């Protein structure tokens, strides 16, 4: 027997995996953490609701010479359940991942995958050509290609050596 310091966050995590009724607490805890994280990073946006988001899809962003390529992992989400908007240079991906249908007579042995609403926003640099944004969805992966404006592409200048 050993004394272990009580960690309320851990308890909430345990309850939420054992009792579905407590699952809301876990998402509340994550939201609270996020509020403080965001506060210290200073990027809370006014239109972001505190409780409207249950999970965050993983995103990779790659910059090439003529575009930014954003890949978001959205496994199990139908194309029609994803909405992409661009407003005032803020690109937002939002949607909902619906839970498994077979709950009758079935017991959950393990639940690691995330369900519920998600939303992620990115402030685009002014160099992105908004009209040329392309979105592709395949095998649970959303790929957005954000082309750079002509003037933002790296230029090669020939220097004449005399």
């Amino acid at each position: 027997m050993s004394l272990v310091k009580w960690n309320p966050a851990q308890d909430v995590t345990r309850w939420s995996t054992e009792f579905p009724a407590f699952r809301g607490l876990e998402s509340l805890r994550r939201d609270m953490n996020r509020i403080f994280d965001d506060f210290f990073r200073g990027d809370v946006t006014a239109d972001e609701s505190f409780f409207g988001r249950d999970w965050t899809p993983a995103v990779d962003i790659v910059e090439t010479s003529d575009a930014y390529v954003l890949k978001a992992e959205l496994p199990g989400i139908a194309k029609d359940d994803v909405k992409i908007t661009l407003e005032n240079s803020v690109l937002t991906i939002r949607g909902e991942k619906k839970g498994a249908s077979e709950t009758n007579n079935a017991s959950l042995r393990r639940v690691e995958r995330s369900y519920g609403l998600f939303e992620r926003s990115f402030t685009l640099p002014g160099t992105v050509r908004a009209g040329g944004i392309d979105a592709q969805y395949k095998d649970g992966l959303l790929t957005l290609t954000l082309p750079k404006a002509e003037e933002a592409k790296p230029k090669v200048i020939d220097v004449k050596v005399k």
Partner: protein
Amino acid sequence: MTNETRQTAHTLVPAVDIIETPAAYVVRLDIPGAERERISAKVEENTLTVSAPVSAAGEVSKDIEPVREYRREFSLANDVDVQSIDARYELGVLTITLNKKTQYLPKEISIN
């Protein structure tokens, strides 16, 4: 003593849901970005191994060999009928249905 491991820094452990119904176990793995033809699922000595290579984070072109791999192993219970395992891939989710052997299925016993 050797510490043999097949995991590399590029092994991704997919999140999984496991549901048990009276007749089967249903395993769902998130493997976004994996291509159907490259997914492998096999059973060897009561261990189910699922693996699938994916392009690395930065790869925009598909010409470069994938360097990341999803991989996860499951020990199967004795009641799983390894002869009737079904796998489906849709929207980046692999769903494996492991049917139970008939002798383990729930039976209704009538009272005479």
